[in-house]
């Protein structure tokens, strides 16, 4: 029998001291009552996208865990934004949980106080599972979900970064390197454009409204970066804004397919999938269709990189969605349970590994095993991590975002048609300024 040394005695004492904490932790796990709201029902109104599909596909897990029944619906993005706004305005929304595009509706929802503040719920140990691990959410995503007054009326679900997709075969054929700056992107795209072969160096959004985020991708690389100043003044006809307009114009006119003036992401995706475009800047959610061998001619040949840098800064556009709980909901407890489950670590890992998008939590990115088992190349995940470090909101946090996008988007469309960027941006700025001023007066 070995002797009891001072070291073993200290270890034993430390172990004994740690027992209460461990017991408390285990007890807390066991004590948390997932069945507290058994038999109740939650209605969730979600935007139609691969992430919502995943949640609906796996919602039986939640129902088995909690005994709460879920009625979840998916509605196309634009119609969903209108539907939930009108339902909230009616005072009797039909849903308890709602998916909100933060880049479009954040201030609208925050100003009207349509959703409950999530923070007190997180701090309530009787309602929040001990393994919820709020610290796991990326700081950027939490900041994006937080209103100016400190209320967090959505729990971040998904962050979307604009990245650069490229066709490896087309670049290799002409020995073109992946561009590091926008000027290099233009030079490379120009070199890879050959209309006689219906091959184009670049494809990007040209459709009014949708096209604004491509322009802001360029603007984020300038000294100015943003479209609205901190005191809510428009910065859309400045020299930097005009530079971004010129970059947009020359890429779209010299390197993009004819007719891209009417392209939204789906037409861009089709063009890229057909192998007709060398570069495409858009959201992260397109890796899955691009790598689908049954639909895509470029599957296995797609390269992923962060968007190139501008003349002064290097950022990529950040967008995101969050899940909110209606202030009018009579099922706040069950709704909060659903939200917790929807953005738990398992579901967030599913988002990442299925190519449905970048999760708001950081733990999925550290799960090497799952990443290796994924069908997407390592380069894709590296691009996401790198993009997270340089991401900055791609649209201004104002209420009339859609009107902003329509007004500036029309100017951009005209630029693709050959109009002068400076004149177009001046006209659009003058048209939108009173709308913004009126909106800000209503704050």
């Amino acid at each position, binding site marked *: 029998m070995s002797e009891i040394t001072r070291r073993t005695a200290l270890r034993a004492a430390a172990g004994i001291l740690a027992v209460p904490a461990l017991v408390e932790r285990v007890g807390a796990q066991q004590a948390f009552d997932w069945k507290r709201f058994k038999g109740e029902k939650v209605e969730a109104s979600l935007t139609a996208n691969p992430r919502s599909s995943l949640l609906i596909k796996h919602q039986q897990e939640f129902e088995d865990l909690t005994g709460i029944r879920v009625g979840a619906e998916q509605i196309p993005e634009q119609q969903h934004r*209108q539907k939930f*706004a009108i339902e909230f305005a009616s005072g009797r929304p039909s849903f308890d949980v709602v998916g909100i595009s933060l880049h479009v509706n954040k201030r609208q929802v925050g100003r009207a106080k349509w959703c409950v503040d999530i923070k007190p719920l997180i701090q309530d140990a009787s309602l929040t599972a001990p393994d919820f691990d709020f610290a796991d959410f990326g700081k950027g995503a939490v900041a994006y979900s937080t209103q100016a007054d400190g209320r967090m009326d959505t729990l971040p679900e998904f962050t979307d970064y604009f990245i650069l997709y490229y066709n490896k075969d087309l670049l290799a054929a002409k020995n073109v390197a992946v561009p590091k700056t926008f000027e290099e992107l233009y030079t490379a795209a120009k070199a890879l454009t050959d209309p006689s072969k219906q091959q184009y160096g670049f494809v990007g959004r040209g459709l009014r409204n949708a096209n604004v985020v491509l322009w802001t991708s360029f603007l984020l690389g300038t000294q100015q970066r943003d479209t609205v100043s901190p005191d809510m003044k428009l910065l859309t006809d400045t020299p930097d804004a005009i530079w971004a307009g010129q970059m947009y114009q020359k890429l779209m006119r010299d390197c993009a397919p004819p*007719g891209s*003036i009417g392209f939204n992401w789906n037409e861009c995706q089709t063009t890229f999938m057909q192998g007709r475009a060398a570069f495409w800047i858009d959201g992260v959610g397109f890796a899955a269709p691009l790598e689908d061998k049954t639909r895509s001619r470029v599957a296995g040949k797609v390269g992923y990189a962060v968007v190139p840098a501008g003349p002064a800064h290097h950022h990529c556009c950040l967008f995101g969605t969050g899940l909110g709980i209606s202030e009018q909901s009579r099922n706040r407890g069950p709704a909060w349970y659903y939200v917790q489950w929807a953005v738990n670590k398992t579901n967030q890992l599913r988002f990442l590994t299925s190519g449905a998008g970048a999760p708001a939590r950081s733990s999925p990115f550290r799960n090497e095993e799952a990443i290796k088992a994924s069908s997407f190349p390592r380069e894709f995940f590296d691009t996401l991590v790198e993009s997270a470090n340089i991401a900055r909101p791609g649209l201004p946090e104002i209420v009339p975002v*859609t009107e902003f996008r329509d007004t500036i988007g029309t100017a951009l469309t005209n630029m693709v048609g050959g109009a002068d960027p400076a004149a177009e941006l001046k006209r659009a700025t003058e048209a939108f300024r009173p709308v913004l001023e009126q909106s800000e007066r209503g704050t």
Partner: protein
Amino acid sequence: MDNSAAALPGGTAVAAGGGRRRNYARRYGWFIVPAGAVVLAVILFPWAFTLFMSAHDWKIGGGRVYVGFENYRKLFTDERFLWSVVRTLYYTVLAVILPMIFGTVAALVFHRRFPLRGLARTVFILPMMATPVAVALVWTMMFHPQLGVLNWLLTQVGLPPSMWVYDARTVIPTLVIVEVWHWTPLVMLIVLGGLASLPVDPYEAAKIDGASAWQAFRHITLPLLMPFIVVALIIRTIDALKAFDTIYVITQGGPGTSSETINIFLYLQGFAYYNMGYASAVVVVFFALIVSLAALLLWTRNRVKDA
């Protein structure tokens, strides 16, 4: 059956006494309450509320401020709205005239006897049965400048590819192509119904008098068909003015605002920008426009009838 009071049992007495008539109205008047309630709820109230909202500055999620006629004043100085009116009229004229011509010609063709006429008629009216959104999605794919079948067909016959809905100059005529394809069968059906009801005697008389086929058409068929053509014209005009789904699905009003008709403008103001007050003013003006045009067409129809 005569439903007048006098025709009812004891009707003579009822007709003779005004007091009894009032009793009759009091006794049976409540039968109109359900219909009246429905009319009030789905027609009068929405209209009154639209008028009320058009006098307010109201954004969804914000407060409501009374502005009187300010929304109307703003509307008539809003360049984007005025252009949408011009585009609506341009689109309507094309989307009415072309189906009217093609539909009338098709009706004349299908009125003649030829082998497999029934099958041909059925095939011809198929587009009309398709869901507009589905139709629009199919055409969107066909219009794709690089991958669409239409440009492939053009290049097969040696013609240059077109930008179709992806060019501000061609977008409205292209949208009209979809409308013509979709709704020419409706005009054909209406006119065909008219042709089937035409009397034979005038044609026999004309033949005896030595009239040519063109003269018979010009002086007999066309005048007799005119009431049917005017009905088709009214229906087509109202439909074309209301057109929304096809345009929204295919172009969303673009490129830029080059296919933004009043309906698209109205939709954006109401449901994208949440300017409910301003959108209500657009509704009132648009309603006045449609009613004026419908009244004009009805007046024309009556003139034709009288003639």
